[in-house]
């Protein structure tokens, strides 16, 4: 049993960082992730960690300094949101291309314009192809747990990739929840000592990071990154297993809820899973065979595992808290639908874009989704493939 506490998502994450005690942390304030670094800065000021805190002048420099620090050979963390993540965009690819296991808390938030500081997944989804492992968290407990696991996953010798852990801005970051913290010693033991490969600070063995890579090698290096993503999958499961042994909390690529005999299902990620779970329970009481699947891991995308989990479902609604303008639906939808294409029979898959810029997702909205799915189940027909939920039209 861990220590039960009540704290906001941001403070929970800052406490995970305190327990991880990274060697270097470079960050620039941006709402709603600001509180993470504020709290962490006071841990530094009070000597509760011995991290070198670099308060850079932009998120671009935050990620640049993280890259320099990680290449130098130590544990590195940062936190950001929305436009901050977008400003890091160029450097995200450089972090993963150099195989640097930086860990970043992304407090998910809408991207400008119009400016909006509230929770949606546009930032994380924008970075989906940058070569970072990506987790999404339903609540403060998961954000805390995911962050600690991220350290171990990223530093694995087969993986050596940066990891971002998402949690919904304000909805989780600023809400006070009950959660359990591990003891400082448990976290220390769980993450272990970090032994870097080819650190820059080993001046006896000089290495060159970030060379020019022309047509003769670039493809091979990118292929190796793709392979590292594949190798990350068993590592993520193993780390989750080890984490369960310490914490009693079990994690997989996703969580299924009342899915075994479900004919229709909802797939979501982040904080909306809680609301969906409640509505699923209500519908079950009315005899509706509905289940829920909550995606925790978005990169690497658990394609085969989703196929196996959703094989018996007749109709599936994929919930995207992000739009992909001009695309074949939201980012989660297009990948889930693609993953299920080879199934026979193939479930009908529909998409709801919802909750942009922090718009509330209510019980009634999910009840509507279930009604739509029931209709598809009965008629076998999809009226509208992609629908905007929680919007005035």
């Amino acid at each position: 049993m861990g220590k039960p506490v009540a704290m906001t998502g941001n403070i929970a994450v800052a406490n995970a960082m305190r327990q991880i005690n990274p060697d270097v942390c470079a960050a620039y304030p941006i709402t709603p992730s600001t509180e993470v670094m504020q709290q962490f800065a006071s841990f530094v000021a009070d000597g509760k960690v011995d991290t070198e805190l670099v308060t850079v002048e932009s998120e671009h420099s935050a990620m640049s300094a993280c890259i320099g620090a990680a290449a130098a050979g130590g544990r590195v963390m940062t936190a950001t949101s929305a436009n901050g993540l977008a400003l890091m965009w160029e450097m995200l690819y450089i972090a993963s291309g150099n195989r640097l296991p930086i860990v970043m808390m992304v407090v998910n938030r809408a991207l400008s314009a119009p400016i909006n500081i509230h929770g949606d997944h546009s930032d994380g989804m924008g970075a989906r192809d940058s070569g970072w492992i990506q987790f999404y968290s339903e609540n403060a407990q998961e954000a805390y747990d995911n962050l600690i696991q991220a350290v171990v996953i990223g530093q694995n010798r087969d993986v050596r990739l940066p990891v971002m852990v998402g949690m919904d801005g304000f909805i989780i970051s600023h809400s006070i929840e009950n959660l359990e913290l591990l003891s400082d010693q448990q976290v220390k033991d769980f993450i272990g000592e970090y032994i870097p490969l080819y650190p820059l600070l080993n001046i006896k063995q000089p290495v060159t990071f970030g060379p020019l890579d022309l047509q003769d090698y670039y493809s091979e290096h990118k292929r190796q990154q793709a392979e590292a993503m594949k190798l990350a999958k068993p590592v993520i499961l193993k780390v989750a297993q080890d984490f369960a042994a310490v914490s009693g909390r079990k994690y997989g690529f996703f969580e299924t809820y009342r899915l075994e005999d479900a004919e229709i299902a909802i797939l979501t990620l982040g904080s909306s899973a809680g609301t969906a779970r409640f509505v699923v329970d209500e519908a079950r009481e009315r005899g509706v065979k509905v289940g829920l699947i909550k995606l925790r891991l978005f990169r690497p995308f658990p394609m085969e595992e989703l196929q196996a989990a959703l094989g018996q479902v007749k109709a599936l609604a994929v919930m995207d808290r992000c739009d992909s303008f001009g695309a074949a639906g939201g980012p989660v939808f297009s990948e889930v639908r693609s993953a299920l294409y080879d199934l026979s029979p193939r479930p009908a898959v529909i998409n709801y874009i919802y909750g942009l810029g922090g718009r509330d997702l209510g019980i009634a909205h999910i009840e509507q989704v279930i009604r739509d799915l029931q209709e598809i189940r009965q008629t076998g027909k999809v009226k509208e493939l992609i629908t905007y939920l929680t919007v005035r039209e």
Partner: protein
Amino acid sequence: MATLKELSQREELLAGGHRLCAGCGASIVVRQILLAAGKNVVVSSATGCLEVATTIYPYTSWRVPFIHSAFENSAATACGVEAMYQSLKRKGKLPVDEEIRFIAFGGDGGTYDIGLQSLSGGLERGHDFLYVCYDNGAYMNTGIQRSSSTPLGADTTTSPAGKVIPGKQQYRKDLTDVVEAHHIPYLAQASPHNWKDLTRKVEKALSIRGPKFLNVIAPCHRGWRSGVDQAIELARLAVETCFWPLYEVENGKVTINYKPKTKKPVTEWMKLQGRFKHLFNPENEHILQRLQEGIDAKWENLLRREEGSGQ
């Protein structure tokens, strides 16, 4: 300070065989700096000629640890490396007797323009590193586009000398002044033709804790449209004409390191370069005049500042 004999016996830390142009000013600058710095350095570089031509995978010319991450962040990347050094040293994870110095290189584009913010941030935060700008006055790596360091009137691919507009319309930014406003412990301008002055400045900079800055002129025959063997001569003339004064600012005290006995007109430096050729047409005489006036004013100002800061 290391003597010429000592320097000649030191290992070259930028290995030959790199793909920088024959006669490239930047490579001379970097070789001299590394000879002066010695092996216990970690180098960061901005994207640019220096980086792309010395690190073509699977080869590297760097006999010291080297990192390149992007164009605008040589300073921020170096700051990250330095922060890790401080952290690991404090935690006893690095040998305490092994002092490591940090040098960030960037060209004028990566320093005066896109990299100015990360340079300013690194200087303001007081990281213990030396930033070296090798200034060749344009974006040479991408094909000679104007930078904010490009001199007034120069013909570049984005400030071409055309029928209506005769080359770059603005004076160059004085980055050394901008850096000085950060009140760092040491900054200087240097030139590869004066190896002694450059070596002394590198040694001095690396002996001081905190942020340091060196702006070093690095002639580029491709961009300057000059002879392949003229880099050192052009660097010398830049100094003799006071286009590129050699001076240093240590804790606010300005010292001019070289005062030409007779200051040569800037045209002496310009006439060896094809990028200024059009300015010698009679209709552009006013630009030559403006350029000379700008240089004179800056030089006079520097002389006054030296006098003022000595009191």
